[in-house]
């Protein structure tokens, strides 16, 4: 079967949890099999939101890729800085929000851009504005969640960060490693190899292996695709395995339409040939799009909520309570269950009592032994 068709099947499988119910007169019919349908209906009504962050040096093709992914132009009238202006540039955070709709499903898409990252001559701690931004969103959500009126909470948390690795080197550079390590516990990091049309297939494979090995060596926790269930069929599993082995994706972006093989496709025109963005043998754009949008968008959101946000929240609360015991305050600014704080005094008492108990136990044993011996 064609690879594209297989992927379509995968997408369908993940989307369609709808089960066609049929009234079976022989069995007892309750009716909760329609729940998936109800969930589907409600979610369409509510609409979805997704926040995507793009990071990487300027000239890596981030804007082009985002435009290609969502088939829209988010960067009209963008001003690019000169080299001179960039010598001491600081990193900015710019948000673009659009509402897009497809087959009745509404998506509020926010792209968080990070112009200036890695562009200055001195890039020490250039990721700080970015981590601060992510933490700010978490803090905002935390406050909203803990507030009294929780009707209209806006979820501005960053669900995914696409990091663009330049294809011109031999692997990761110090700035790449530092950035990913600063962010891997705050957001889902998906590394990409940018501008992959400067690498031959061999070179792509070598670079991917190198990057994967360096990611493991430096202990960077990039976003892991969830394991598929063991009861799925073989081709699904095969596809899943292929996708995982393709990481990091080597992408090419384009907004211009060119004519290739008699069709109009999105691509880049060179004197020696045409690179088709959606051709799987040219680059991994399609795989990225499927993962990001068609199959794993919700999982990315779930991991952000269940893992990154919860970590942040637990850390925040711990900091707050430790501060509180230091300052001897009893009320907290947010409603939380009183944690059994490890108090130094009580710890000591507990230890003492434990020791006493142990000693008593020993004495008892000795006495018993003595009695036992005495009997004999």
């Amino acid at each position: 079967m064609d690879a594209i068709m297989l992927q379509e099947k995968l997408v369908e499988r993940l989307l369609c949890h709808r089960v066609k119910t049929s009234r079976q007169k022989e069995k007892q019919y309750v009716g909760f099999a329609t729940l998936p349908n109800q969930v589907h209906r409600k979610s369409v009504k509510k609409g979805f939101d997704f926040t995507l962050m793009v990071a990487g040096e300027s000239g890596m093709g981030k804007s082009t890729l985002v435009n290609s992914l969502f088939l829209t132009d988010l960067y009209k009238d963008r001003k690019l800085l000169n080299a001179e202006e960039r010598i001491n540039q600081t990193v900015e955070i710019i948000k673009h929000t659009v509402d897009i709709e497809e087959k009745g499903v509404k998506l509020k898409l926010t792209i968080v851009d990070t112009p200036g990252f890695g562009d200055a001559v001195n890039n020490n701690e250039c990721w700080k504005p970015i981590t601060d931004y992510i933490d700010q969103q978490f803090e905002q959500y935390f406050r909203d969640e803990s507030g009294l009126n929780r009707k209209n909470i806006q979820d501005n948390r960053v669900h995914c960060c696409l990091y663009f690795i330049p294809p011109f080197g031999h692997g990761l550079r110090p700035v790449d490693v530092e950035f990913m390590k600063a962010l891997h516990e705050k957001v889902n990091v998906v590394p990409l190899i940018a501008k992959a049309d400067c690498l031959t297939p061999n070179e792509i494979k070598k670079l991917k292996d190198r990057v994967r090995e360096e990611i493991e060596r430096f202990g960077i926790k990039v976003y892991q695709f969830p394991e598929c269930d063991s009861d799925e069929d073989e081709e699904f599993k095969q596809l899943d395995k292929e996708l995982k082995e393709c990481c990091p994706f080597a992408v090419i972006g384009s907004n211009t339409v060119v004519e290739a093989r008699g069709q109009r496709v999105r691509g880049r025109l060179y004197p020696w040939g045409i690179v088709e963005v959606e051709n799987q043998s040219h680059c991994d754009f399609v795989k990225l799009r499927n993962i990001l949008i068609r199959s794993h968008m919700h999982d990315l959101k779930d991991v952000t909520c269940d893992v990154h946000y919860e970590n942040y929240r637990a850390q925040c609360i711990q900091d707050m309570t430790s501060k509180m015991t230091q300052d001897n305050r009893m009320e907290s600014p947010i409603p939380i269950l009183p944690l059994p704080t490890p108090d130094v005094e009580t710890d000591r008492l507990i230890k003492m009592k434990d020791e006493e108990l142990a000693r008593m136990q020993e004495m008892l044993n000795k006495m018993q032994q003595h009695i036992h011996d005495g009997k004999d």
Partner: protein
Amino acid sequence: MLLGSWVRGPLSLSGHVGFDSLPDQLVNKSTCQGFCFNILCIGETGIGKSTLMDTLFNTNFENCESSHFEPQVKLRAQTYDLQESNVRLRLTVVNTVGFGDQMNKQDSYQPVVDYIDRQYETYLQEELKIKRSLHNYHDSRLHACLYFISPSGHSLKSLDLLTMKKLDSKVNIIPVIAKADTISKSELHKFKLKIMSELVSNGVQIYQFPLDDETVAKVNTTMNGHLPFAVVGSTEEVMVGNKVVKARQYPWGVVQVENESHCDFVKLREMLICVNMEDLREQTHTHHYELYRRCKLEEMGFRDTDPESKPVSLQQTYEAKRTEFLGELQRREEEMRQLFVQRVKEKEAELKEAEKVLQGRFEQLKRLHAEERGALEEKRRVLEEDQSSFSKKRAAAQLLQAQSLNANGKKDKDRKTSGFM
């Protein structure tokens, strides 16, 4: 007074003399000697410097991949002997290692500047030697610097601008756009314009191919307009049509390195090697090296004209410096001598003081000694007196006793026990 005349304007010759063979003689001599060329390649790790050198010189220089995690920028120089027809070339390729990889790149240009200056310095030292062998000297000064620009498609990077500004007065800079097969034609045109305008607006002087020689002026003018050259390097060979060419094979096509509609590699090779190599060497010697030499000598205090604006020869300046130096030495010596004398005097005074004190003590001791002696003498006299009086008394007593014994006889036997025996 010297007599002489100089007839300006070409004198017509009535026959063939033969000095038109001078250029050939020169050529023969230099071919025998062999040529030397030194290139510096500056660019980020992995940008294709080694591959381009391999492609340009059609050989394999066996470079190993560098790591991205070098703590500082270093330079690595390798020298090769190449030969084409009967022309021998000693080529030195200097590559930067770790350029652009550090987090803080403010000082990245410094090792490069230091290296270039070192080569000029060694040449200057050789030139200033008393016994010098310039004709044998292996010229290590860098004749050309290829600056590899990353193909972002937008503009120069801030590091590029900073580095080129520091280097443009020291070496001939030829900027090239590396890995140009990732930029489409329309993007390339815009990119080149943007780069050149940024260089101009920041006052960076890159190497312009010379226009003074009519035979090459035309081609050089055209080429100047194509700067910076967008190059692609490859040592792999691919079959295209019925020929085997150096190329890069992609799923969507084959990029041929020597195809002028694919990239500017041929232009670079022609300009750098075929047409202007000698001019690059000349520019380095007459322009960049002279500038370095002038700055260095001025630092050392040499001038071409003295304060009254009269021309001063190097010898005069040298003599003046020498006398100044010697005078300085003498002054120092004098100072030291005076210091020495003073110290000696001080020490002498100290010693005298000490001597006096000792003398005083000696006197005192002597006095004490004499006093003791006197006292002792006195005591001895008293003792002697006592002794003599005692012995007198004893003698008198013995006498008395003897007399009483004789007088009393046996009657006083028991009286012997008493008395003062």
